[in-house]
């Protein structure tokens, strides 16, 4: 009997990957990493990892002369074990193990104002593109993301899960009517992206309307002391594609609030120009500091296929 050391390492790593995915799904932390619509495909990945792990276990105890191992092409994988564990291989395995180490060690963090600043909410708009269609401003971006998400390939095959942002066409229509008709525009999580897009598209139409929203504070260089941005991150797929949906907000006490403070705010919409660009602004009337919500991100609306 011959035990291949590399097969043991591979078995351990596959086992860790499998348990990481099991942990993500059982704790619900998966929603802190990716858009909930990836839950299903990620569960498939979990099952594949478990299968591969089980198969790999049996590979540890193989006879040295690998009967029946076929290499149909000059495959350069490391699977001709040979038991020699070179420095290069150790380096390779540690790269693969690295995300699992950090994944188990650290709690998932919520994206903060620093990241929002890097994304450059207003920098992008004020950059002065000669061709706006080439580089969409954030507002257009948000709108188009929401629109594009309207059809989802999973919606036919699977039932919506509670946290998933599925809506029927009627529901979405109702919500959109509510945006026009309601006394106060309530920026709820499920419709945030859609409302945000509409308001930014035609800020003039909403002047004088009451608005209620919650979000985190972030500030950019060049803001006056009574200005801050109250924003949410919208996650289309994973955190890497997070876009900042934020309203410029104005009230005297704005300077008290540090970045990353969560506020619930009511105010009146108005229009302002920032670096020559017209954008909505909230004149805050009341606000209170709140805890970071359990679901800090908003997701684009997905309507069910009829």
């Amino acid at each position, binding site marked *: 009997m011959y035990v291949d050391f590399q097969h043991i390492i591979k078995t351990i790593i596959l086992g860790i990957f499998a348990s990481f995915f099991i942990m993500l799904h059982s704790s619900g932390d998966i929603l802190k*990493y990716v858009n909930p619509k990836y839950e299903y495909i990620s569960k498939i990945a979990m099952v594949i990892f478990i299968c591969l792990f089980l198969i790999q276990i049996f590979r540890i105890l193989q006879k040295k002369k690998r009967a029946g191992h076929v290499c149909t092409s000059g495959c350069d994988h490391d699977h001709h074990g040979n038991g020699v564990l070179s420095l290069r291989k150790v380096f390779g395995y540690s790269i693969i193990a690295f995300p699992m180490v950090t994944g188990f060690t650290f709690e998932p963090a919520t994206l903060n104002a620093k*990241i929002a600043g890097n994304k*450059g909410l207003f920098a992008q708009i004020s950059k002065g593109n000669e061709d706006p269609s080439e580089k969409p401003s954030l507002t257009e971006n948000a709108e188009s993301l929401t629109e594009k998400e309207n059809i989802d390939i999973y919606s036919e095959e699977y039932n919506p899960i509670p946290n998933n942002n599925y809506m029927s066409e009627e529901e979405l229509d109702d919500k959109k009517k509510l945006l026009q008709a309601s006394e106060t525009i309530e920026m709820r999580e499920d419709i945030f992206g859609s409302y945000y897009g509409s308001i930014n598209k035609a800020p003039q139409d909403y002047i004088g309307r009451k608005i209620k929203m919650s979000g985190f504070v972030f500030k950019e260089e060049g803001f006056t002391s009574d200005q801050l941005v109250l924003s949410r991150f919208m996650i289309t797929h994973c955190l890497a594609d997070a876009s900042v949906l934020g309203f410029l907000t104005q009230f005297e006490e704005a300077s008290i609030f540090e970045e990353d403070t969560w506020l619930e705010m009511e105010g009146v919409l108005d229009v302002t120009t920032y670096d020559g660009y017209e954008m909505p602004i909230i004149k805050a009337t009341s606000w209170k500091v709140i805890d970071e919500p359990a679901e800090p991100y908003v997701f684009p609306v997905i309507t069910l296929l009829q």
Partner: protein
Amino acid sequence: MQYTHMAAPKKTFMLLLFIICCIFLGPLFMSDQFSMEAFQQLNTIFLSIIIEAIPFVLIGVLIAGFIQIFVTEEHIRKWIPKSKMKAVWVSCIAGSLFPACECGIVPIVRRLVGKGVPLYAGVGFLLTGPLINPIVILSTYMAFGNDMKMALLRMGVGFLAALTIALLVSWLFQTNQLKHKEHFHTHDTAAKQPFFQRLKNMLHHSIDEFFDMSKYLILGAFVAAALQTFVSAQSLLLFGDSIFHSTIIMMALAYFLSLCSEADAFIGASFRNLFPSTSILAFLIYGPMIDLKNTIMLLNVFKAKFVFLLLFLITVIVFIFVHLTTFI
């Protein structure tokens, strides 16, 4: 044993990548920007990319394993016709139907060319194999907000670029450009084995492929997450915000990140509020055709002069073709 000499370039590559990471990321970690909080942000984005991409990588390695065991190169070689033009077309189409990643395809192409498949057909196959296949298309479709436009452009423009490059190669090179005159002996015993043995072999291949591929994905995800955490959008635009500049930046990123084509769509998509779609298209087409790790593998198989000329051709052709899309 032909496998042993793969070790040297891989070592060189790892070393190169390590040095590049140190040069680019080192200062960021040492600067005052770095804090535990920043690292946790980075780590969360990093894991997020991996968690999202890994299901696609898994599906990719399962298919690759299947092809490896159940389809022989003989099948593909039989379809290559005698005429140059036809052969280029057929090889590009065969590559489009053949799901492989850019690291997996190099050894296959070496074997094909060694067995007598013309070099230009090998190149066509090499370029379209990783670029156009169902998984890449599906992941591109999903990464760009379930929008077919980017996936279609990636397929269409990529295919035309691959055709052009393969044709140019057919005019420029007459010999097979292989570094070593390798003697390929067939050991395709696969067909004679019982089904379950083959299924087992397929899964073993998939596991090894997973370990081979995920290294590059993880490194790429880490670099991408670090860029997002420490580098603001504005500073990237400092290089110049013209469309040419941003395309060059995206192509350089594609080359150095060396992402697997199954997952690069997600990383490409994460740049879409920074760069115009033309530049992102360049990223999506250029990356699967050639990148750092691929170059090193090719250098191991083909003569250096050929590899560098191929690298040059791919860069120029993709750059031109991508910018032609703005006129559509």
